[in-house]
């Protein structure tokens, strides 16, 4: 299936005329009002905007966690709206990795288990037993690269905020996704720890990882290769 996603041009991701609105009581809040965005392979794009400007909504739509009311998201030239439910699950499992502001790790699992969870989720029981050694080795390698090799058996609640976010990055990278989507990855961290996370993202980008990061902080956005500003539901030129 991975071959289905092979790129036909330089753009890994294209959003064309995205509209999204939500209902809040009787009122309808229009969040996105025709967003166009194209991300090239290996790019590090920061989406900035004020609170409520629709940054997170846009990121969720790009990662197929939400659907636009109108418009299309094309990943490696394939329209996500044409994907079936199981194809979207496979897309989220294999093609994208999410990093959230609040880490979103599973407390019942150890650090190592949290990291290799996407591999486990993408396989049947038999498939998992066939690749479990590889998965555990890769998870350990990732944790070593992220400076957490001593924390593999810990539970998420035993870690600091920065450590948790690095575990979340490890999980997002486990299946070697083509695209990493980060939603305010430093929003819950102090500036020193946040810088550490941004260093990790920069390092990943240097190895060719495509990253789209959402932040409200211009200084953090400066670490990205390209900044896109979202104002009033539209990309500002």
């Amino acid at each position, binding site marked *: 299936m991975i071959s289905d996603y092979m790129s036909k041009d330089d753009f890994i991701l294209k959003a064309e005329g995205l509209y999204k609105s939500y209902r809040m009581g009787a009122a309808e809040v229009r969040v996105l009002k025709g967003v166009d965005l194209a991300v090239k392979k290996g790019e590090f794009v920061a989406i900035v905007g004020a609170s409520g400007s629709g940054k997170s909504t846009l990121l969720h739509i790009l990662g197929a*966690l939400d659907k636009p009311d109108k418009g299309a998201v094309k990943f490696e030239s394939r329209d996500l709206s044409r994907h079936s439910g199981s194809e979207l699950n496979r897309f*989220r499992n294999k093609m994208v990795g999410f990093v959230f502001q609040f880490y979103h790790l599973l407390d*019942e*699992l150890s650090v190592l288990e949290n990291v290799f969870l996407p591999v486990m*989720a993408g396989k049947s029981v038999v498939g998992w037993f066939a690749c479990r050694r590889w998965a555990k080795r890769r998870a350990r390698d990732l944790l070593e690269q992220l400076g957490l090799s001593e924390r593999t058996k810990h539970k998420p609640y035993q870690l600091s905020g920065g450590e948790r976010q690095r575990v979340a990055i490890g999980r997002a990278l486990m299946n070697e996704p083509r695209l990493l989507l980060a939603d305010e990855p430093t929003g819950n961290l102090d500036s020193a720890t946040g810088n550490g996370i941004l260093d990790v993202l920069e390092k990943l980008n240097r190895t060719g990882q495509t990253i789209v990061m959402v932040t409200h902080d211009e200084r953090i956005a400066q670490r990205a290769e390209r900044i896109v500003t979202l104002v009033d539901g539209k990309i500002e030129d």
Partner: protein
Amino acid sequence: MHKIILAVRYFLKRRITHFAVLAVALCVFIVVVVMTVMTGLVSDFKQNNHNFVGDCVVGTESLVGFAYYEDFVNILEEQKDFIEAVSPVIKSYALVNVINTENNTGTGLEILGIDPVKHSRVTSFANTIHYHKGDVSKTFVPSYDPNLVGCVLGIERAFERDLNGNYFYHFTAPRTGYSISCFPLTARGALSQAGTGLVRTKTFYFSDTSHSGLARVDFSLVYLPFEQTQQLCGMDGPTKRVSAIHIKFKPNIKLQTGCEKVAVLWQKFKQEKADEKQAYLLDTVTVQSWKNYRRASIAPMENEQTELIVMFAFVGITNVFIVLVVFYMIISHKSKDIGILKSIGVSNADIMVLFSGFAFLIGLLGSGIGLFAGRLFLMKINRIEDWLFERFNWQLYDRTIYTIGDIPNRVEFKVLAIIAISAIVACLAGALVPSWQAARQKPLNTLQVNQL
């Protein structure tokens, strides 16, 4: 694999699941204990009825009885392929007075005239008597005087019981005479004697006692020798009559098949006797299996059992609700996890399987604990009851009233399996709606900052 791991981890880590397991275990425990005791009582009761009657009864409820029975007995005895033994009996009611006793007001009792040897081949009569267990042919021969005609009294009529339910058997049969009076009837149902000789009376002496385990039988039945009973009831005329013929089938014969064959034989016999003088008596005769014959006694007990099953179905529904509430609580706490799993590509079906697996574990462990505790309790139930009686003078069944020895505690593995499977299914049913709702949750809603 993640479903199994997460289901097990949720199960081990969430304290509320321990309460769910406890609730399931408690329900299973109660159902196992009560159902085992109740099923045991019903099953013992049915067995005692079967032992008392034999397999099949060709008989009439009329006190007149029916004629030509000897011919039919001969026909039955020729059916060696499916009939093991037959026993004609006379059933009636009599006034019984104890001889040489002051304050003797007479008691109306049921009398059953039998040939003890024949009747023991068909029923378990030989096992119910006490003094003549070794030689049933001498059942009606009192040990203290072989020249007298004996009678066998129901155990409740003969001896008293202690609080533990044990009877005070005398070392030898006590010499007690009974004057037994009947109204002999003609074949047309009229009194066969007129004037002062309206009643026919005979004296019998206590020779043995019968303990059938059936309260009504043990309390109000007197067994008498066949011929004497026939005379007492006026069934000893030129055309002799009986009330019923009890039949025992060969061991490999199914009850229904045997009864159907007997019914065919009876119809044929009835046609052959159609021109006989007392053929009209054959019209009231029915062929019934022991279950139908004793239906009036068994049905109320079976009804009680059915009512109990219905009540426990409600316990099962309560179980479903407990699991449902627990799962709503668990899933409301785990909505973030559901969002995380969906963000890494876990499908809705997998989310359902995850929480169903969780419910399955609750059901499995809960029913396991409940079955184990129930089994243990049942193994000790009689000792516990004895202890309670010695310590607090309390009994589950008053042995002076109920003809129960030990509380039935035979565990039927089929029943245990049904209870365990029902408990697991109840857990899965309870978890179904919350799991379905969990699977339908949108990841975006659960991962938003304001949801945390």
